């Protein structure tokens, strides 16, 4: 590129000087904003030094314009190229000083964390176990009929097993508040055709005075399968798997015979007391074991009543009390805390539920 003396209206300068100065300033620009100032200084439409020279071409003769015009245009192109190159460099290799200047701050005003109820967290953990085993989830009405809460579960009127339930009635004897979530089992058996594997958490009611240890409202987790073949071994494996998920691989479970009208044979799963490792303490009432619920092979009468042939289908059912699990996990002393009142969540604390 050649360099020419250019006469303007107000001052004289050389294209060479402009080129040297502009290239030096482009190289020295520390950030994009500084580079933009250089661009405006030399190539700005209004007052850019190179633009002023270009505008002065109109005052020159035709011969001078032909000679010098291309030179200035080449210079302009050269500077634009240098600007682009430097801009690209700055975009990838911003100086530490520039980064410091640009650094975005953090706001230490923490957002409050939302929380799920401990019962929900526990139910989800159990749901996860059963969903992995291919179970469906189910729900059912809390205002139940005698038919689904008792009769279809092999508990006819005046059956001694009704003593196990202190029932709250809405319209005795027909309408009541379900005393157990087994009523959902009765409804599934009535509505669907086997095979199925179903799990269902739910709220239940008993006519008891509320105290620190007992409540007239509590929560159960039940489930059942009806398949071509299902055995106590399958049932024990299912329950043991769940307990291991909840309490770790070292949990000790025992299964004993227990009576429930809706199953035959009946099963009572107990967990060795986590507090005393079976030695006996206040938590386990000195027996070393904690009752965890009930289970068993579904009584054939339930299947008959649902129009399912027990000679072709067999199933097992299980039910677990949730409230005491939750109380133990969250160190809650008063069962009433689970239903309002004193249950609170720390604004910025959470538990891992992965």
């Amino acid at each position, binding site marked *: 590129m050649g360099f020419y003396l250019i006469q303007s209206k107000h001052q004289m300068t050389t294209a060479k000087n402009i080129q040297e100065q502009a290239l030096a300033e482009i190289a020295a620009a520390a950030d994009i904003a500084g580079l933009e100032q250089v661009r405006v200084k030399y190539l700005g439409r209004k007052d850019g030094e190179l633009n002023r020279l270009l505008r002065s071409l109109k005052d020159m003769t035709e011969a001078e314009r032909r000679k010098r015009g291309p030179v200035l245009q080449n210079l302009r192109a050269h500077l634009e190229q240098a600007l682009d190159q430097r801009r690209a460099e700055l975009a990838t290799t911003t100086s530490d000083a520039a980064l410091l200047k640009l650094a975005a701050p953090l706001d230490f005003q923490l957002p*409050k*964390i*939302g*929380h*799920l*109820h401990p*019962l929900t967290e526990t139910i989800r953990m159990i749901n996860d176990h059963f969903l992995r085993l*291919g179970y469906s*989830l*189910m*729900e059912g*009405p809390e*205002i139940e009929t005698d038919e689904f809460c008792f009769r279809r579960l092999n508990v006819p009127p*005046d059956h*001694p097993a009704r003593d*196990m339930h202190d029932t*709250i*009635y*809405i*319209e*005795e004897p027909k309408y009541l508040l379900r005393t157990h979530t087994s009523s959902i089992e009765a409804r*599934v058996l009535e509505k669907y055709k086997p*095979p*199925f*594997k*179903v799990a269902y958490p739910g709220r239940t009611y008993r006519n008891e005075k509320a105290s620190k240890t007992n409540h*007239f*409202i509590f929560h159960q987790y039940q489930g059942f*399968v009806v*398949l071509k*073949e*299902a*055995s*106590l*071994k*399958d049932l*024990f*494996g*299912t*329950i043991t798997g769940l307990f291991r998920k909840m309490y770790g691989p070292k949990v000790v479970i*025992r*299964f*004993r*015979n*227990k*009576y429930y009208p809706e199953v*035959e*044979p*009946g099963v*009572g799963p107990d967990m060795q007391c986590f507090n005393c490792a079976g030695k006996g303490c206040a938590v386990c009432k*000195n*027996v070393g074991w904690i009752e965890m619920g009930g289970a068993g*092979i579904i009584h*054939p009468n339930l299947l008959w009543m649902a129009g399912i042939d027990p000679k072709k289908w067999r199933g097992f059912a299980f039910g677990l009390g949730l409230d005491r699990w939750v109380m133990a996990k969250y160190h809650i002393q008063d069962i009433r805390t689970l*239903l*309002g009142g004193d*249950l*609170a*969540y720390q*604004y910025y604390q959470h538990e891992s539920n992965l």
Partner: protein
Amino acid sequence: MKVLYSHIKKLVPGLKATAREVGEGLTLTGFMMDGLASVTYNGKPDHVISLEVRQNRPDGLSVLGVAREVAAIYGLNVKLPVLKAKPRTVPSSGSGAGVKYGSARSPARVDAKNKVRRAQVAAFTGVKNGPSPRWLKEYVELLGMNSVNLLVDISNYAMLVTGYPNHLIDQHKMRGDLAWGYNTRFDRMTTLLGTTLELQKKGEMLIQDDVNPIATLMVGSRAAEVTRGTSALVAEVAVYDPAQVRRDSRTFHVSTEASRRLEKELDPSGVAYAFEFLAALIVTHAGGTISTKLFDHYPRKFQPRSILFNPAWPGRFAGIEIPPAQSLRVLKHLRFKVATGKKMWRVTPPAERTDVTIGEDVVEEVVRLVGYQNIPSGELPAFPPTPDITPPIIRLVEKVRDALAANGLDEIYSLPLTTPALNAAANYREWSQVVTQNAINEEYPVMRQSLLTGLLAQAQSYRKKNLEHVQLFEVGKVFGKVGREYQERECLGLLVHISAAPKVTTAAQHILEQLFRGLGASEVGHRPAAAGPIVSNPHAAWEVLVNGKAVGILCQLQPQKLTGNTVLGDTAFCEVDLEDLERSLRAATHPAAIELTHKLIILDANLELPRGDSLPDRLHEICRQIGERHVWSIEVKDTYPAGDKVRYTLRVSYRDLSDPEAKQKHAEVFVDN
């Protein structure tokens, strides 16, 4: 049920197991040990084993029944207690007692013949009551009963050992026969405990004489009570239709040691042994003689059921191999009679096992004695896949919970039972309250009609404890009655309390909108609600619309109206019917993802509507006019209330139209607006 270890050892000769081992063995087979106490009995160290007998086994509430169970566990036999009554006669019922009956008529009759399955009665004269001997006094006390006097303690001892309740009645206080029948004459009865029972003459049964109620089926009366001075008595042992016992027990709210046994299917044939055992105890320890013949009402002889049983069943039910020989051995230990066949066996349980009626019952007997502890429990079953029948609302509820918690809200569970006053303040639906009939918690007699009751209580509790962040939600049922139908709806309740009161409803609105849109709703709108809870501001109550359907309400609350205190201040409440929401979401199936091939044309427009007109409805109409396939979005950029009108600035983004086409469409649609 408590048993004395030394007594069990005496009844089961050869038993080597310790008391703890016996208790643990019983626990695994169905009688859970819930206590083991070291005691001194008759001057020797002993143990009392406490058992929870929840089985439907009527024999479980007797020492003999427990002894038979222990014998079966250890493969031993029970030696029934032999009482040598004086004067001794020929044994008649297996007790070995051999009591001698007199020749006079026994003063008894049964009027309610279909309710009394068996009753035996005899009268005793010349008996001498007094303090009990040490062994008897200690025995009844160790097993949880009060020692009263010899005759009463004998009565209780006989019941504890045999499982059959009995009554001893002072004959000198009786007038006429002892009669079993329905009560038609008496209004009240003073029980042996001194309490007054208001009789109802509504089908309850009594044991009565000509002038007094002598006993209900659960408890005796004071009228003919045995006392220290009793010298002549009438003794009875009877079993009834268990349903009658349960009904009477419920009617009078009385549950006794006697009623707990009589409510089960006690074997009527066992009455003979129980009566003879009782009679022998009386004659042996209180002296005297039996002055009457034995009265024996036994209209239908009880025969244990014969059950067809496949010896392969126990193994299939248990999931392990149980050879037929093992099943046979177990059943014999349990005293079942077994007639083996090539494929099926015919099994007859002992008479006292009235609970065993079907093949599955026999399976349970075999498997529990083989031992649940011998069934592997460490493997998850490999079941075949089954259809997923999970209702969609269950997945929706979980998504709702996640979304709200992620938005900083806390979940609560509250009481679904409440007070009529709170329901009246919180309800906004056209339904009546669901009232419980017998709830013993008088402060909670009705089912909640809205989740507001629990949320408000929780919010107030938080504020009283200086918790500042009160943004709560609950998922649960609300209940009501329409006509004769009980209804319950799964709802989401949401309560938002923030200090900037004027913005409380918009804060709640934004939470809801974010929730709904996150769940897949394309349209979320609001329109003035026809009704809100009493505690809401009627000028700030809206119906919430999702995809054009009403799914709930959003309102500003004035909780002080309800509680009289101002601890909470301005608050917003939303309640969403999740079943309606699920339906509304499911109905809208338009996919949001598209292949965008042209740039969007974005044009603004003004829209003026009379105040109170529904903007969502109008936007819906505009969308239809433009043609849904050409609408990318319509956004409300600004709102200007102007007198009785409201002016909105809209930004409409057109798709799949050229610039001139979009402008032409825009002009057509908005020319009149």
